[in-house]
């Protein structure tokens, strides 16, 4: 029994070293930055955009915060951090007031791997979260892309 046990440990150790030595350089993690949607939302104040931006960012990322001081309308948040405090994804929402409406844009970044989501997928989630789970709300005009 002891010999079998030692054989198993030896097999695992050997497997580890072979894997460690032969693993190709799969750490070619690439940075991806995507231009998400741009929308003009009619008949809503920019304060609504700010509220939705914070909520949407917090639903996809963590600790959404408004950049700068005062009402800048520029929001960003980062993805979950690893044990060393590194984050591998981030998103930004810009709100800008227009006459009777506001302009909102979505931008996302990801390093995949290790981020499980691509930047494109994150921005799709972010846009859906901003629109209350729908890709497009009734009053919204999705301009691009």
């Amino acid at each position, binding site marked *: 029994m002891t010999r079998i046990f030692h054989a*198993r440990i030896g097999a695992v150790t050997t497997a580890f070293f*072979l894997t460690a030595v032969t693993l*190709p350089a*799969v750490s070619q993690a690439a940075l991806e930055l995507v*231009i998400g949607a741009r929308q003009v939302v009619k008949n809503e104040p920019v304060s609504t955009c700010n509220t939705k931006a914070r909520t949407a960012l917090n639903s996809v990322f963590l600790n959404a915060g408004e950049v700068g001081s005062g009402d800048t309308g520029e929001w960003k948040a980062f993805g979950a951090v690893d044990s060393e405090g590194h984050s591998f994804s*981030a998103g930004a929402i810009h709100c800008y007031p227009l006459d009777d409406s506001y302009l909102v*844009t979505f*931008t996302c970044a990801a*390093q995949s791997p290790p981020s499980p989501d691509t930047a494109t997928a994150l921005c799709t989630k972010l846009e859906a979260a901003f629109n209350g789970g729908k890709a497009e709300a009734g009053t919204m005009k999705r301009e*691009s892309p």
Partner: protein
Amino acid sequence: MITATRIRRTVFAGSVVVTLLLCTRSFAPAAVELSTGIRHVSDTGGLDDCSAKAKAALDAYLTNATESSSGEWLATAQNPQAQTVTAAATVRCYALPKGYVVTFTCAVQIPENPYGADALCLNIAHKFYGGALSSLAAMPTPTPVPTGCSPANLVGTWVSDDKPGLTLTADLNGGFTDNDGVSGNWGLRGMTVTLTYYGEHTLTLSADGKHMRGGGYNFTRKC
């Protein structure tokens, strides 16, 4: 009741888990840095004006600025040593009844990128609408691929002396690929070569770096 067999199985399972965890160590411990918050409103000019400036500002620091949709620009930069994109920026223009509004967002992968996202965005923005420019650290130059038959590495193409058709093409990073596309790894300590290729083989490199023999293999390097 805890039996010896159960303990052994637990230890075995634990070993497998640890092994798998260790195997994932090759994911780079890098981080994404995002810079946003620079917005510029111009009372004059239109979308075309904004787009022209956006492209020029992006091209000043990054490469291949492209318009993904009307007035929305994206560019990236690659770290030649990491062989991957490590910096990117967007400049998004939106036409107003009078003039336009433009936002700047940048992302970099740290530590592979030699400068931060804030510095990149500030320079792009200042290039766009004027302002002090700072110098960004240059991307590292790619490591030159050694040529010839250096005894300090195995880089190059090796032809088997006794196995017809077998060739190994070794790269600078300790990897190689054979003529069938099967990959392996090489190591060199002194004149002792370790090839991980259908098992591990120990060979000896000749003083002129042109031959390696042992472990059932005989290769001659093309140089």
